[in-house]
């Protein structure tokens, strides 16, 4: 009875008996993958909770899922957490959008002038090799200990690599397209707006995806250094007062926000590239 019901559910939408068997096997596997994922999560959280309660690990250092959950609701209800999340997300979003846009603009500039491209090459290599977070102190004295510095950190960490990647992408557009455009008498500007730029949109979105992750690094480090609020500040503050529950709770929130943001960019990618070839 149950088996029959299961079979029917697993083979819904089948075109034939062979297709039904194929679907059953595929969906059964889908099911096991999902169940295994949940089991891992539940065992991890359960093991953590039990270890903490029975004193196998130090609850003061490693906290426990239930404490983190309680703290999360407490801070959510007094509204502070929402503000911190909002500030950090704002900084990150502006950071990666500015970084990607500035990188693309710079790439356009050096594409437009091969001379400039050759001149700037060693500078870009040096800047790219440089660990950008080390520039923190300079940003603080320039932009003040606050929003500006944190934002710049997010931009700095993304802009150079974006410039290099996008410029490379501009140059890798097949010479056949350049030949075609030139044979029609296209100007360099027309070539850029009609062919080069649209052809490189997939690479720009790929850069955007990478930059989401990078901007989080820049913003969190920036908040470590200067901030009075934000998730990075919560992590730092929790560490200083030795409230590890707060640290871990903030980490989980960062992970969730970063994942959601990455997913959003992935959706945007799918939408923008819906007509393109998959090759």
């Amino acid at each position, binding site marked *: 009875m149950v088996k029959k019901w299961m079979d029917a559910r697993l083979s819904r939408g089948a075109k034939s008996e062979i297709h039904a068997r194929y679907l059953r096997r595929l969906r059964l596997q889908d099911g096991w993958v999902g169940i295994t994922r949940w089991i891992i999560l539940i065992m991890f959280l359960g093991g953590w909770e039990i270890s903490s309660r029975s004193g196998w690990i130090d609850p003061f250092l490693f906290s426990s899922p239930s404490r983190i959950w309680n703290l999360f609701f407490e801070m959510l209800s007094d509204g502070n957490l929402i503000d911190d999340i909002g500030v950090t997300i704002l900084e990150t979003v502006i950071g990666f959008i500015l970084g990607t846009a500035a990188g693309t603009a710079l790439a356009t500039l050096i594409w437009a002038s091969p001379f400039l491209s050759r001149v700037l090459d060693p500078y870009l290599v040096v800047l790219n090799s440089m660990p950008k977070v080390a520039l923190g102190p300079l940003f603080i004295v320039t932009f003040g200990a606050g929003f500006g510095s944190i934002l710049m950190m997010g931009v700095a960490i993304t802009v150079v690599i974006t410039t290099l990647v996008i410029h490379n992408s501009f140059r890798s557009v*097949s010479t056949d397209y350049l030949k075609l455009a030139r044979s*029609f008498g296209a100007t360099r500007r027309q070539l850029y707006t009609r062919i080069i730029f649209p052809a490189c949109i997939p690479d720009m979105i790929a850069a955007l995806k990478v930059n989401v992750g990078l901007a989080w690094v820049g913003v969190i480090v920036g908040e470590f250094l200067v901030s009075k609020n934000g998730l990075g500040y919560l992590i730092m503050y929790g560490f200083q007062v030795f409230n590890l529950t707060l640290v871990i709770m903030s980490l989980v929130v960062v992970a969730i926000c970063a994942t959601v943001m990455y997913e959003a960019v992935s959706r945007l990618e799918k939408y923008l590239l819906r007509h393109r070839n998959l090759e």
Partner: protein
Amino acid sequence: MSDTPVIEALRVTKAYLSREDEIQALEPVSFEIRPGEFVSLIGSSGCGKSTVLSLVAGLIQPTEGEVRIAGEKVEAPNRRVSYMLQRDCLLDWRTVEDNIFLGLEFRGMNDEATRKQARLLLKELGLEHIAKHFPSQLSGGMRQRVALVRTLAVQPKILLLDEPFSAVDYQNKLHLEELLIRALENRSMTVLLVTHDLEEALAMSDRILVMGGRPGKIRRTLEVPEELRSASPLEARGKPSFRPLFDVLWKEMELW
């Protein structure tokens, strides 16, 4: 047919320069093409036939000598000329219709009248039903047909074809050849076709220039007899004089 040449190459040479080397691609090459002629340039790969086409297209400049179109020295891509490549180079993010307007946009002649002409061409080549499709939805043969429409849409007087049918399968190649010849019928166009396909050259051209050697030069000129010229590309392949001429070309190619 007037005898004033529409394309002239006067002792043209081309050397490709790099920091390390200088590669001589052409020995002095000279030829004339009369209005309305269909001329093929054949030769093994690396003999400089594509270089000659790029020179006529004004994409590169000769090292010595000069190329003239309608008596004027070619210094940049000429508006009378349209150039078609082996790759279709369709823009994936534009519909078929917007793809065929590309040349019109670049030439600053994208108006209602020329767009209408381009749409008629699309119809003539049996593609009107895919006007709103995106290139990724089309087969290789279809894509190349769209590229042909884009090439013709700028209403050229001279057509330069760089192995335009070598990337499609045999059946599509024959089909495209027929379509091209039919499209040329009502338009007075001069065609210079570069190909390594001897059959294609024989089936389509009025005259064949055989290139060879490194640096390349023109080894021989072959006038295609009326029997083949008046037949369609497909019919020409079945004519009695086709095979012997093919053998002549084949031997000519083998020598170099």
